[in-house]
């Protein structure tokens, strides 16, 4: 009766009715309409300041919020309800606060005062509400303001409040670690409690305190270890207690928390570890393992055993438990077993190896979570002795594996094969299997590495190209396989046709020249082939045109249609190659000589230097030049790079060796259009040779003179000579007044390094501490104002030598940062030398925002780690 009278003042429906109405909606649009109507009513009610319906409005808003609609207009209602005196209002108000707000909202600060009052309320349930809200959403400021109240409540008479205060304290010390010391003593007092709730939360609080503060850790270790061991023993031996019993075990949650705290206390302390050995052994042997609860305890116990100081017997016990877990039929148990074995590998690899067969089976499990864990475990178990059978198993499985899983699996197989391969032929065989099976999942650097290896294995060239030819017949849909095949046929096509270098293990095949060209033709005409593949195929065709003279005309016919290709790269190649094939028979054979062997070590080093996303740099295998600047480029490039001694070191663009060599890296030609830029000129000579993509530059550079002086050499033996003879012949034809292509051929010479002609920016001291000074020198790439080349120079200001010196930098999103490898990782003492490192920063907001950078410098002094961090915001304007 009453409510109907009250309803005349409000248009609101009851919560229940609103939920019904929403559930009755058949479409999302209907639902939106209902919600919109309700929200409008609630807003109106809020505006009228309708006290009677605040409670109901908020409940409705929470439901609407759960459906994902915006409800910010209800935030102030929460605060009003919290501030009202009654328990029901406060209860729903706090619930709304936790649901509708998060700690980052300003509104939250307004509630601090109400919270403070409620924490001191005489009604313990209201205190409980406030503690719960504070524990779930408090911010650092609130934590500081209210920590004394919470600390006091840890000693409240009612256990219900003590346990809530304990968990609330966890949130507070996580938000403001400085406050931890205030909580240490009251927390330790909680460990003596009998009430399970208080004990559980107290143990948890101590665990978190110990993680935050070493002072707490030492104190708890000294004062409480024995007590905790006793508590755990009493708990483990306690008779059946219905209130806490789960599957025959008394309070597994408390068990687990005690084991966790013991783990923290035992880690790195032999005495503490010693005192808990007995109870751990008891838990490990006596706990029933047929239910989740028991297994959860065993799992925690195993973790503790493996973390505390070594005790051989216990660890055997732990490994045995994991073995049992692994053979369990329950997937959950197997999952955690795999998880733990991963940690066990570090101290007992032998024991884990024993389970290898089972683990390998898990890789093939139908459950993605288990597969992933198992694969990671197998990955760490591989070594030189077992790599062959393991790789075979994995590759066999690759054929039947889930599509989603193939990416991970392929990456791991490639990594295993590359790391542990006993011989090259085995490596090539396995990689061929992988790329024929899952070529589309193989990363660029992996197949580039494969080509480098193939190039190095001169006795296997014939074998490899034939194997690839066979694989191509069955797996032509695998892009990466196609690329590698095309490259190899381009290089070693003659070996394919003539069965050169037959190994005993292979069957001879008959491949005609035209069959080999067929492969490349399929690759280039295949609809799915991407630009890289097509570009590679064009290069291969050019090479074959000189090797298979019978097919020259056919090759020209394949090349010619690309003259009209929409992709400039292909169009240009097609026109140029066509002209080489048609008109320059005399230079063709030298022009398309086989690639010189690619250097493996440098390739690996370079890869390390150009790993995407790696902010830190590796200096492992970079080539050191006379001028002291490391230069992670291939020796081939060095060989050709005649200007490197007197020019600034070319900074590679981070592209891959092969890309440069084949001239397929499409980013390069576009960069070159900012002509005269020294940073690429060195690297791209060969690119120029093949792609002839550089705009013509004045040919009066010294390089050409050097090359000209070699003109008398008859039989070219090195690539350098190739270049020179090519240059000469092209020049002579050019002089004869031929096609415009000649100009292009003419123009492949190195453009002389030009000095920076952009505005000059002053150098800055970017970072200075008492140990190290970092200065930045700036230069710009002409024609590219967004990009700044920063040369960082590090000086050691102390009297100790720094080793393992690593510089890392981070920039906000509008900047892009590329770090080249540093010149060294050792910084001599007292300024007796420096480390330099080039950074390339691209500012997408050039002219609007200045550069800003956060840096971290890590190094070791006498083997001790040292770390410095700072922010650099004093960059000159306009960079």
């Amino acid at each position, binding site marked *: 009766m009453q409510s109907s009278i009250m309803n005349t003042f409000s248009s609101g429906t009851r919560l229940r009715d609103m939920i019904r109405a929403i559930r009755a909606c058949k479409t999302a649009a209907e639902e939106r309409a209902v919600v919109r109507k309700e929200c409008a009513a609630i807003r109106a009610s809020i505006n009228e300041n309708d006290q009677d319906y605040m409670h109901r409005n908020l409940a409705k808003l929470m439901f609407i919020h759960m459906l994902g609609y915006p409800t910010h207009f209800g935030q102030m209602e929460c605060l009003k309800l919290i501030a009202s005196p009654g328990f029901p209002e406060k209860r729903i108000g706090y619930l709304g606060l936790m649901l509708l707000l998060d700690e980052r909202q300003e509104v939250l600060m307004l509630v601090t005062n109400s919270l403070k009052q409620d924490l001191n309320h005489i009604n313990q349930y209201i205190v409980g509400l406030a503690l719960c809200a504070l524990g779930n959403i408090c911010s650092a400021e609130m934590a500081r303001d209210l920590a004394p109240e919470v600390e006091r409540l840890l000693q409240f008479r009612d256990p219900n409040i003590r346990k*809530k205060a304990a968990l609330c304290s966890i949130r507070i010390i996580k938000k403001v670690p400085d406050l931890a010391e205030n909580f240490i003593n009251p927390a330790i007092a909680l460990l003596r409690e009998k009430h399970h709730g208080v004990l559980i939360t107290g143990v948890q609080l101590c665990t978190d305190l110990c993680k935050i503060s070493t002072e707490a850790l030492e104190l708890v270790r000294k004062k409480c270890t024995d007590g905790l061991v006793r508590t755990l023993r009493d708990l483990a031996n306690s008779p059946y207690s219905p209130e806490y019993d789960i599957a025959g075990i008394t309070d597994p949650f408390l068990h687990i928390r005690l084991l966790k705290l013991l783990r923290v206390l035992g880690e790195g302390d032999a005495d503490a570890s010693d005192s808990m050995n007995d109870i751990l052994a008891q838990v490990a042997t006596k706990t029933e393992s047929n239910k989740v609860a028991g297994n959860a305890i065993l799992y925690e116990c195993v973790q503790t055993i493996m973390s505390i100081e070594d005790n051989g017997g216990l660890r055997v016990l732990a490994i045995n438990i994991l073995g049992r877990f692994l053979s369990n039929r329950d997937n959950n148990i197997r999952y955690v077993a795999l998880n733990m074995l991963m940690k066990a590998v570090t101290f007992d690899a032998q024991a884990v190896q024993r389970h290898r067969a089972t683990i390998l089976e898990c890789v093939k499990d139908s459950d993605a979570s288990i597969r992933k864990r198992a694969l990671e475990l197998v990955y760490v178990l591989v070594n030189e002795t077992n790599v062959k059978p393991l790789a075979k198993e994995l590759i066999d499985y690759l054929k039947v594996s889930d599509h989603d899983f193939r990416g991970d699996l392929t990456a791991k197989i490639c990594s295993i094969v590359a790391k542990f391969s006993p011989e090259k032929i085995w490596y090539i065989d396995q990689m061929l299997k992988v790329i024929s099976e899952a070529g589309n999942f193989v990363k660029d650097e992996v197949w580039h590495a494969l080509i480098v290896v193939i190039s190095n294995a001169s006795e296997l060239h014939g074998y490899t190209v034939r194997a690839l030819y066979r694989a191509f017949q069955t797996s032509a849909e695998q892009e990466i396989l196609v690329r590698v095949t095309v490259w190899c046929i381009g290089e070693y096509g003659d070996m394919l046709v003539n069965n050169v270098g037959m190994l005993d293990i292979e069957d001879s095949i008959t491949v005609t020249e035209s069959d080999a060209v067929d492969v490349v033709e399929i690759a280039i005409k295949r609809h799915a082939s991407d630009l890289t593949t097509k570009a590679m195929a064009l290069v291969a065709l050019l090479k074959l045109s000189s090797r298979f003279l019978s097919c020259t005309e056919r090759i020209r016919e394949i090349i010619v249609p690309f003259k009209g290709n929409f992709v400039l790269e292909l169009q240009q190649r097609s026109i140029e190659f066509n002209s080489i094939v048609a008109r320059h028979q005399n230079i063709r054979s030298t022009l398309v000589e086989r690639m010189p062997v690619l250097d493996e070590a440098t390739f690996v080093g370079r890869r390390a230097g150009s790993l995407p996303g790696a902010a830190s740099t590796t200096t492992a295998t970079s080539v050191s030049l006379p001028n002291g600047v490391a230069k992670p480029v291939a020796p081939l490039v060095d060989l050709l790079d005649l200007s490197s001694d007197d020019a600034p070191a070319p900074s590679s663009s981070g592209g891959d060796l092969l890309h440069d060599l084949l001239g397929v890296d499409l980013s390069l030609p576009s960069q070159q259009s900012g002509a005269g830029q020294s940073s690429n000129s060195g690297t791209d000579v060969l690119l120029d040779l093949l792609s002839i993509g550089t705009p013509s530059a004045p040919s009066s550079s010294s390089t050409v003179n050097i090359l000209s002086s070699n003109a008398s050499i008859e039989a070219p033996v090195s690539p350098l000579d190739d270049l020179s003879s090519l240059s000469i012949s092209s020049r002579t034809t050019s002089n004869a007044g031929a096609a415009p292509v000649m100009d292009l051929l003419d123009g492949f010479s190195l453009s002389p390094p030009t000095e920076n002609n952009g505005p000059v920016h002053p150098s800055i001291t970017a970072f200075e501490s008492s140990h190290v000074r970092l200065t930045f020198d700036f230069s710009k790439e002409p024609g590219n104002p967004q990009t700044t080349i920063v040369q960082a120079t590090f000086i050691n200001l102390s009297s100790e030598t720094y080793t393992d010196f690593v510089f890392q930098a981070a920039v906000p999103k509008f900047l892009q940062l590329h770090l080249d490898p540093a010149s060294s990782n050792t910084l001599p003492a007292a300024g007796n030398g420096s480390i330099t490192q080039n950074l390339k920063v691209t500012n997408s907001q050039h002219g609007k925002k200045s550069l800003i950078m956060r840096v971290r410098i890590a190094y070791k002094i006498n083997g001790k780690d040292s770390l410095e961090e700072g922010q650099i915001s004093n960059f000159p304007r306009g960079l």
Partner: protein
Amino acid sequence: MIHFVLLISRQGKVRLTKWYSPYSQKERNKVIRELSAVVLSRAPKLCNFVEWRGYKVVYKRYASLYFCMCIDDEDNELEVLEMIHHFVEILDRYFGSVCELDLIFNFHKAYYILDELLIAGELQESSKKTVARLIAAQDSLVETAKEEASSISNIIAQATK
């Protein structure tokens, strides 16, 4: 620590969300979308753990509802599974064989229960009985307040008749 608790229905409707780590509203919606897709698509009998963005999500299906808890990588997955069961048993005891509809129409009650079970993403109470007792005590506080309110409004109504 538990970063959040999610209850999702078989149809992907959210029935309860509780966040113990700061996620903005936008992130929350994204997380819910992502996770419901992952969890709902998993076949039965697979393990109850999903690795997700460097965390682990422990989930368990009860009738038409999926209970999910997101935990740190080093936390005990099996324990969290037991915790979910603990929560479900308490709900069951409170509502008397709980069903999805109970959690829809009395969603606030489910939140109150969860608040007696977890704070700051940590377990608060291992005794189902204690939780039930605390909830009952607070419910009766609300009832008393309501009765008082209605008797006052009765008096007012009588007086103003």
